[in-house]
């Protein structure tokens, strides 16, 4: 082969590059091959003549590259009947989306739906359930994400939080000292407004005339009204400026005053002060963080309580209050954070080296946008929170929708063989591919539309249950055009997604082959179908594994030994008059026989409300002073009432006068303190000496029943009382006991309606989080399985139908029903096993991650995976067997008759 560029007239001998020629041969459509190859060769020779062989070869390759275009390999269009028009402007292409055509598509779609009622029902039901779940999850997510957004100052509102280190642990809390509010407001110009509030639970008795109501309210600074843009329906614009005022929500106002105008009316709280109603504000939506039935002016505390006026106002050590702050427009919170960081420390440092060196209190701003979903802190850093469940369930929602769409695709492609003839005839008669795509897409959009209607009905019907399940009050805003736009777009998207594969696939059939009868849907079509089934089942199976593990963990927590007996234990808010007559109250209660024991505590039986550091004991180093002890304050009969079995020593006893300086430790405390013989040890705290009289087991009163139990001191403190706990006589039914107790409380506590809490009910509330997640995943899981099974059922029926003749022949040749059943079920069982193998490690990994966040947790056992595999196989076999047996039982005479 010559390649010298100078041989200008060697044209006929040089050849174009072989590889390029070969490539062109391969990719060019047959009807273009001859002319194009000719053209290229002609050009090549001309160029070789003009510029030499090398350049010609290069140009040849270059031209080939530029030839690459779908037109190059597109086959010659099928010769179709086209009316001939003489005038160019009259030539009309058949319009695929002409109204007449669309009407025709819809008509055909309807006919197809009604002709195959079973499949249509499966298709629509599956899609509807999938859409309904996705919508419900969507509504739930919307509710979570939009929380607090109704506050106009959403962007500029902050909660001031405090990081402190105790016993080596950096913790984050809302509780801050009383003077911080004024300090921030007066010394830092970054803040537009600051409002202190009282964090502890504020159930108080509101008295109007002779009626008493228990309502929740908070003391809050007057700026809060504007900061939280509370809408004042009636009354003063600045209603919290006078100490003896009260602001009611519209709901509370209705309860208290009916239809009367509440403004200026008097409400008596705690039977001690009279307050004037100054305004009525709208009740906050259920997903708002700030919740209240009424608001009390911040200054009222000073007016009412000496200790607030005399001590708290200047005490930088007692972290018992909270503060909200609003930054001025355009201020960067990071800068403000840097400024206010040490605000508490500077007030402490002078007289407290421990704070500077160990506790290191650091104040920072937590924006409102993160209050609900990003509320968790680890080592003083924001590490997320509920957002992980929001993300998890958005993924679940999407997956459910995908599963439903997969079903649709699977069923439609499975049906393709049935409809192949239809496609062939249509093509032969002259419909183009676009029209076929149009037809199939309109069919799927129609189905999606019908599914949407059903889904909406399902959502409407199930929303109340869903609200109970999630403890929310969500509604569908029917007036919202965004909702409708979104829903329609969503339906269209679902329809297109679900219909895309069958539409493209079915329309690609070659009419000649179909109508000749040689057409076969080959392996190429079954493989994607199998993959789709595996994906579907892998998802359902991982959901199933996840749900089971969540429930196991839930049960594990519920079965945790608590160290006390929660059944038959009730607690009642104490009040001044109850405490004044405590001895008489106790004697009368015991006399009824309904109560077997009674005690006073500073916290309800299932919680702790106070924790303290600064304890000293024998052998404690200076670092041990920052160990935090949960503090339960009580007097006599605490362990008896709670049903606690002491490990060592004894409970406080009236027989020992020294017990008024007594303390009981839990085992965690003994361990942390490193005491060998705790009973009789001396301790020092709050400038007093304490003597250990007993040891109790680790009683679980943490806010989460999965947390490790912290060291605890149960101290004898007669006047530190918030609750009165009663143990009901086990021989008596709770309701009968309550009936006997109530008159006595009414007698000694006339200002309060009788209200009580069962410890076991309160304890169960601690599982809300886990229960919510468990229930939601169970619902999602069941529906995922349901949808997958629907799909499997439909698919199995198609395969059975497709193989009717084969089964007939097999039967004639002597196959048993069991044989045939095995034959038809085998494929599906294989797929489910593969799905299981894929899903198990993923689920294992994900659930291990989830369990990481718990201290008291289960270990995942292999039996979960085996069990789920067994369940999945069982479900699959049940689903498939119906069709398999139906096919196997058919009389071969009938199936083979037509041949």
């Amino acid at each position: 082969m010559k390649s010298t560029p100078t041989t200008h007239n060697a044209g006929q001998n040089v050849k174009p590059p072989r590889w390029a020629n070969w490539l062109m041969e391969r990719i060019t459509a047959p009807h273009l091959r001859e002319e194009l190859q000719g053209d290229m060769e002609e050009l090549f020779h001309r160029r070789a003549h003009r510029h030499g062989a090398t350049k010609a070869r290069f140009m040849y390759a270059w031209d080939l590259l530029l030839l690459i275009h779908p037109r190059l390999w597109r086959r010659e269009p099928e010769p179709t009947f086209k009316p001939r028009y003489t005038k160019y402007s009259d030539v009309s292409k058949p319009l695929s989306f002409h109204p007449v055509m669309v009407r025709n598509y819809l008509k055909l779609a309807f006919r197809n739906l009604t002709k195959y009622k079973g499949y249509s029902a499966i298709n629509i039901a599956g899609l509807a359930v999938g859409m309904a779940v996705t919508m419900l999850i969507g509504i739930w997510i919307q509710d979570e994400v939009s929380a607090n957004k109704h506050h106009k100052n959403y962007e500029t509102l902050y909660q001031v939080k405090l990081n402190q280190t105790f016993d080596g642990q950096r913790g984050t809390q809302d509780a801050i000292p009383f003077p911080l509010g004024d300090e921030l407001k007066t010394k830092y110009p970054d803040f537009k407004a600051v409002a202190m509030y009282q964090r502890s639970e504020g159930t108080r008795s509101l008295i109007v005339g002779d009626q008493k109501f228990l309502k929740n309210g908070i003391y809050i600074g007057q700026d809060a009204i504007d900061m939280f843009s509370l809408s004042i329906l009636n009354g003063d614009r600045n209603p919290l400026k006078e100490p003896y005022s009260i602001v009611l929500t519209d709901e509370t106002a209705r309860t208290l005053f009916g239809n009367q105008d509440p403004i200026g009316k008097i409400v008596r709280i705690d039977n001690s002060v009279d307050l004037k109603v100054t305004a009525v504000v709208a009740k906050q939506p259920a997903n708002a963080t700030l919740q209240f039935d009424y608001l009390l002016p911040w200054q009222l505390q000073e007016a009412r309580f000496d200790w607030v006026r005399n001590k708290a106002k200047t005490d930088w050590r007692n972290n018992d209050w909270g503060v909200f702050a609003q930054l001025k427009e355009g201020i960067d919170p990071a800068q403000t954070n840097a400024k206010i960081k040490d605000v508490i420390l500077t007030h402490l440092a002078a007289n407290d080296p421990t704070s500077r060196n160990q506790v290191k209190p650091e104040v920072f701003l937590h924006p409102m946008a993160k209050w609900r979903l990003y509320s968790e802190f680890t080592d003083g850093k924001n590490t997320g929170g509920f957002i992980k469940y929001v993300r998890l369930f958005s993924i679940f929602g999407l997956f459910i929708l995908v599963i439903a769409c997969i079903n649709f695709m699977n069923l439609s492609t499975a049906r393709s063989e049935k409809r192949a003839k239809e496609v062939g005839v249509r093509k032969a008669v002259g419909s183009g591919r676009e029209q076929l795509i149009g037809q199939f897409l309109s069919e799927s959009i129609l189905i999606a539309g019908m599914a949407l209607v059903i889904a909406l009905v399902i959502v409407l019907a199930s929303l109340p249950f869903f609200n109970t399940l999630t403890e929310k009050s969500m509604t569908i805003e029917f007036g919202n055009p965004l909702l409708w736009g979104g829903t329609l777009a969503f339906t269209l998207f679902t329809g297109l997604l679900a219909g895309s594969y069958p539409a493209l696939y079915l329309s690609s059939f070659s009419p000649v082959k179909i109508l000749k009868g040689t057409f076969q849907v080959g392996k190429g079509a079954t493989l994607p179908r199998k993959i789709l089934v595996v994906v579907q089942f892998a998802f359902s199976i991982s959901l199933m594994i996840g749900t089971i593990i969540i429930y196991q963990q839930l049960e594990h927590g519920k079965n945790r030994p608590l160290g006390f007996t929660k059944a038959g234990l009730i607690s009642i808010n104490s009040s001044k008059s109850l405490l004044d007559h405590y001895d008489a109250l106790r004697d009368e209660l015991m006399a009824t026989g309904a109560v077997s024991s009674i005690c006073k505590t500073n916290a309800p039986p299932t919680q702790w409300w106070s924790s303290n550091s600064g304890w000293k004991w024998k052998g404690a180093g200076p670092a041990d002073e920052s160990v935090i002890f949960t503090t339960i304050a009580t007097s006599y009969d605490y362990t008896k009432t709670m049903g606690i079995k002491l490990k060592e020593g004894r409970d406080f006893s009236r027989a020992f006068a020294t017990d008024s300086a007594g303390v009981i430790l839990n085992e965690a405390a003994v361990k942390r303190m490193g005491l060998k013989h705790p009973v009789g040890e001396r301790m020092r705290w709050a400038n007093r000496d304490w003597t250990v009289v007993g040891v109790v087991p680790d009683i679980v009163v943490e806010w989460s029943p999965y947390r490790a139990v912290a060291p605890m001191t149960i101290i004898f403190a007669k006047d530190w009382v918030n609750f009165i706990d009663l143990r009901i006589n086990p021989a008596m039914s709770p309701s009968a006991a309550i009936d006997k107790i109530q008159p006595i409380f009414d007698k000694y506590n006339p200002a309060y309606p009788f209200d009580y809490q069962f410890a076991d009910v309160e304890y169960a509330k601690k599982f809300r989080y886990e229960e919510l997640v468990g229930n939601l995943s169970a619902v999602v899981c069941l529906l995922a399985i349901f949808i997958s099974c629907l799909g499997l059922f439909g698919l199995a029926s198609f395969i059975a139908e497709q193989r009717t003749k084969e089964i007939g022949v097999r039967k004639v040749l002597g196959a048993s029903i069991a044989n045939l059943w095995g034959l038809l079920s085998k494929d599906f069982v294989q797929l489910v096993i593969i799905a299981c193998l894929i899903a198990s490690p993923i689920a294992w990994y994900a659930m291990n991650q989830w369990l990481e966040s718990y201290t008291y947790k289960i270990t995942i056992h292999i039996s979960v995976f085996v069990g789920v595999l067994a369940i999945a196989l069982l479900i699959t076999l049940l689903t498939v067997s119906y069709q398999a047996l139906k096919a196997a039982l058919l009389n071969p005479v009938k199936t083979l008759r037509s041949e």
Partner: protein
Amino acid sequence: MKGAQLGEFEEIVLLTIALLYDDAYSVAVMEELSNRLERPMRLGAVHRTMQRLEEKELVQSRFGESTAERGGRRKRLFTVTTAGEQALQEARKIRNDLWADIPKAAFGGSLA
């Protein structure tokens, strides 16, 4: 009809096919265009345009003779159909009308 509008390049190719009359095949059209427009043309672009014109039924094609230069392969010869001629006329008319309606002042001093 909207779908059958002539693109600019299509129009040029169509005109060239008319110009070459009896010997209008892709290489010839390409070379003619390269000469006239004084820029290199690519076979692919020309070929595809001619295919498109045929789909719009503005040109008809038939196989011509085979030559040794082409390795014994036939060439596809194109002729303009009546519809094609009409389309060209229409395009020309639109241009003429537009030219005629341009006010004198539009091109400023150079025309005045």
